[in-house]
């Protein structure tokens, strides 16, 4: 039997300052208030806490695991907000879901949110961030970021099958001169290369298509790049509900446990500084996608054979977090002696907290252990029994015959509620729009083709990607949402993303625009507007800084309002704070960044719509004018009616670069020249607008469908030339050969990627 390595940590009589020092020296990332709460808790008992217990508490109470900021009481000007998550995301989503029958099958409880696909199958969806690790080790950070969110899907319900990945990145500007990047910070160019390769190497090896994403460059992300990784999964509806009952056992499956990735959960709650690159490397894990592939095959087969009662992934916080969550309602005992180790000499807390990758904890009935072990042998993965479920409400950990941790769930899972101040400021005036020239916009690295990145990802493995990230007649035009078929179902689903960054302007409007764009991304592919669900992923600076928190609160209000109007519920989400960098000149925060991801159901294969022009004798229509969400809802309903009537040949959402860029992108299929005339500003980026293509013969029917909507017939496609001609109130403002525009758009990212 291995010897436990732990020590007693008496807290009695320690002052607040001493407690804070202890938190710092152990890298617990707990503030004085939390440390005092722990001290108080153990005062009433008969013994001092062990280091193992302090580590378990720190992990459980971390921002990463318990979302302390999103659950805090926030003073926002005169308002007192009792939990941002509850107020602006959960409550509104619960109300919306209640009106949608059995569409939402699970929200905010499991490792992913669930929606119904058809009678038999559900879809689940989750997006995570992996920002700090990717700043320090771009390849490994992105690699394990994707590995982690794939395990969220494997850990959803009784184990869902991952079927699609998405990846969204924010980097500093790639053209930045080398000497303007601090010595210990990785140049954005290299960060991008490492991150893209990390995602490609993991996703491709896992055999999960990477179908959707975004890349955004801004100087404010030089020190704190952002990496969002998402995965969608499929699971039979009856396998969604987990079961954890006394008498069941816990089995750790997958990779071995080592010292890699210690304190990831708490490390992500700290600011980065010049030393982070040296000191925090131990917090970044090392990915092994083949280990995870074997684990995936094993889990899916085990679920199909009915061996799994519940399952959770070992992510941040390792076994402590995964098993702690599993046992949070019942209690139970973990026995660490049989954990497969990569090396000897690990301290007890290190085994418990290790974030070694590719591990999952399964809850099974004892009689299923043998069949489970046989399957593990078939798929060449390991599994070991590490504990049992009990009904005492206590998380107990035993190592080498000694009890090293015994904590009541009632204490462990209820950290003190934080109180935060938020500064409610008048919105800044919107950032001035940049260039007003189509060619300059198409060459903008935030607008140009993502092809150099997209082609490095396998977006077709599994054979289900129907609308691919690049499609249209030449297979190289940008699309909005990706559309996937599901094996065994006659329904389809679309995935979309909207990345919004608060670089000025009104954060409330930003929240609105984010939801609108996410909805539009899947709507234009043919999704049913009644069957769209959302995820929110916020990244922000220091939540204790009222100036960082203020825009977040306002943005949440916008987000919440838009979700209500569009009747699109949130089903999952994740927030990432402390994206700050400490330099000798002071602390720099990233701008508030929100990724809103959407998943929508497409009811019929005939509704699937691409974003590229298909005919040379068709009409081009514009839906939407000044943004008014109530009007936008009506516009979208009419659009779906037109989709169902079979009137829409292609549709593209208007986003960065406005109408002019949207028209160019749609025309890059090179099937036709395009002539359009509009009264609107052709570069305006206001939300709520779609361009679409119809057969000229369908004009009357379309006008009837859109009679209560903001529809205008913008122009037509033509076989006479291959140019983009745009007139504003009759006056020609753009007249360029498409081939030239396309070359500019296709080549702009290549030098950096």
């Amino acid at each position, binding site marked *: 039997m291995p010897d436990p390595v732990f020590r007693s940590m008496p807290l009695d009589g320690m002052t607040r300052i001493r407690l804070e020092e202890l938190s710092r020296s152990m890298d617990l990332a707990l503030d004085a208030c939390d440390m005092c709460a722990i001290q108080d808790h153990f005062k009433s008992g008969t013994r001092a806490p062990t280091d193992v217990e302090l580590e378990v508490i720190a992990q459980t109470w971390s921002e990463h695991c318990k979302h302390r900021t999103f659950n805090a009481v926030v003073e926002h000007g005169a308002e007192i907000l009792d939990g941002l998550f509850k107020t602006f995301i959960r409550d509104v989503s619960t109300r919306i879901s209640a009106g949608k029958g059995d569409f939402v099958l699970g929200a905010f409880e499991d490792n992913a949110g669930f929606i119904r696909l058809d009678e038999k199958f559900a879809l689940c969806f989750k997006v995570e961030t992996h920002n700090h690790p990717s700043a320090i080790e771009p390849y490994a950070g992105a690699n394990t970021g994707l590995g982690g969110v794939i395990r969220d899907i494997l850990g959803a319900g009784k184990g869902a099958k991952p079927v699609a990945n998405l990846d969204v990145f924010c980097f500093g500007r790639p053209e930045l001169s080398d000497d303007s990047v601090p010595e210990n910070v990785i140049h954005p160019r290299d960060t991008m290369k490492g991150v893209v390769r990390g995602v490609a190497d993991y996703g491709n090896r896992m055999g999960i298509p990477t179908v959707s994403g975004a890349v955004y460059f801004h100087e404010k992300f030089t020190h704190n790049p952002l990496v969002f990784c998402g995965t969608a999964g499929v699971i039979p509806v009856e396998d969604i509900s987990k079961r954890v009952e006394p008498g069941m056992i816990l089995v750790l499956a997958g990779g071995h446990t080592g010292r890699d990735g210690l304190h990831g959960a708490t490390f992500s709650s700290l600011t980065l500084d010049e030393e982070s690159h040296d000191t925090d490397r131990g917090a970044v894990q090392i990915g092994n996608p083949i280990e995870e592939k074997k684990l995936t095959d094993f889990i899916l087969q085990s679920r199909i054979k009915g061996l799994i009662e519940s399952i959770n992934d070992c992510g941040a916080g390792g076994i402590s977090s995964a098993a702690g969550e599993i046992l949070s309602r019942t209690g139970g005992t973990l026995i660490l002696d049989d954990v497969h180790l990569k090396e000897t000499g690990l301290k007890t807390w290190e085994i418990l907290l290790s974030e070694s990758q590719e591990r999952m904890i399964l809850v099974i009935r004892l009689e299923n252990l043998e069949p489970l072990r046989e399957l593990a042998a078939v798929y*060449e993965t390991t599994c070991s029994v590490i504990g049992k479920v009990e009904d005492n409400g206590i998380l107990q950990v035993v190592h080498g015959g000694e009890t090293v941790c015994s904590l009541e769930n009632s204490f462990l899972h209820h950290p003190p509620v934080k109180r935060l101040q938020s500064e409610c400021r008048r919105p800044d005036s919107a950032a001035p729009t940049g260039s007003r020239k189509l060619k300059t916009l198409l060459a903008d690295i935030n607008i140009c083709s993502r092809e150099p990145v997209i082609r490095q990802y396998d977006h077709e493995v599994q054979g289900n990607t129907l609308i691919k990230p690049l499609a249209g007649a030449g297979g190289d035009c940008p699309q909005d949402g990706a559309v996937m078929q599901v094996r065994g179902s006659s329904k389809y689903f679309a995935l979309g993303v909207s990345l919004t960054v608060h670089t000025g302007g009104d954060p409330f409007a930003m929240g609105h625009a984010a939801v609108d764009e996410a909805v539009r991304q899947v709507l234009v592919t043919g999704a049913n507007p009644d069957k769209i669900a959302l995820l929110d992923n916020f990244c922000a600076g220091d939540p204790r800084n009222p100036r960082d928190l203020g825009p977040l609160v306002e943005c949440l209000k916008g987000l919440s309002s838009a979700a209500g109007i569009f009747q699109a519920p949130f089903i999952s989400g994740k927030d990432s704070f402390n994206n700050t960098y400490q330099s000798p000149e002071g602390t720099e925060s990233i701008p508030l960044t929100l990724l809103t991801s959407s998943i929508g159901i497409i009811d019929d294969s005939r509704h699937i719509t691409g974003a590229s022009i298909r005919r040379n004798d068709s009409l081009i229509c514009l839906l939407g004018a000044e943004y008014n969400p109530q009007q936008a809802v009506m516009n979208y309903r009419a659009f779906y009616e037109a989709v169902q009537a079979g009137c829409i040949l292609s549709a593209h959402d208007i986003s960065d670069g406005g109408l002019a860029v949207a028209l160019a992108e749609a025309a890059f299929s090179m099937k036709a020249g395009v002539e359009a005339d509009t009264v609107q500003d052709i570069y305006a980026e206001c939300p709520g607008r779609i361009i679409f293509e119809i057969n000229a013969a369908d004009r009357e029917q379309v006008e009837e469908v859109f009679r209560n909507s903001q529809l205008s017939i913008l122009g037509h496609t033509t076989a006479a030339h291959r140019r983009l001609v745009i007139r504003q109130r009759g006056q020609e403002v753009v007249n360029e050969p498409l081939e030239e525009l396309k070359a500019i758009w296709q080549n702009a990212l290549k030098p950096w990627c």
Partner: protein
Amino acid sequence: MAERPQALVLKFPGTNCDRETADALKLAGFNVSVMPVTQFAKDSLRTCRLLVLAGGFSYGDYVLAGKLAQLELECSAGNDLRSFTAQGGYILGICNGFQILLHLGLLPDGALVENESGRFICKWAGLHKTGVSSPFLEGLPAEFELPVAHAEGRFVHRTRIPESRIALRYSENVNGSMDSVAALQDATGRVLGIMPHPERFVRREQHYDRDWTGHPMWGWGYFFFKSIHDHILNEAL
């Protein structure tokens, strides 16, 4: 009705195209079983007419893509693989399976190495037949396209490959392969290694262009699997 011929899809740790490959084979008329390599035994090939090594990253492909799978397969099957074709069986290697077949020495000497671009490439490639007869290509037109997705798909050789062994060439050389090689076969035509993925284009809606006019229902990959299926059935008659 003739009996459905049996196909066996072998799955290594890291093989990830097994399911869609099995689905494509079923669609073409095969009876299919997918077998993890740990279950593979001497008699696994007994009733099988077509052995398929599917795409993916066997054992991670960290050193010489397909090498570890070859060693594993030689341990478990050894000479059975050679006698399998001698006794009338067919072997198909797609992408990673092609790499494994080269290591096994079942195809002309050569190697699949890192793409000229140094990167993974996922796109569709135009292909054309060379005039060499292959039971896998009988039902396909002279030119067609399939998706490719690989990091190590550039075919290189030391001695020139006889024309009779080159089954398919890229129309536009996507990875820098010598002689634009996209698929190779052995002297008998019973073993085929192909870099593109026919299993990803069995239905027309899998094409990137909504207006693709090749066939009202099926994609080119369907005709690929259908060719070998029909060939095996006809042989049995």
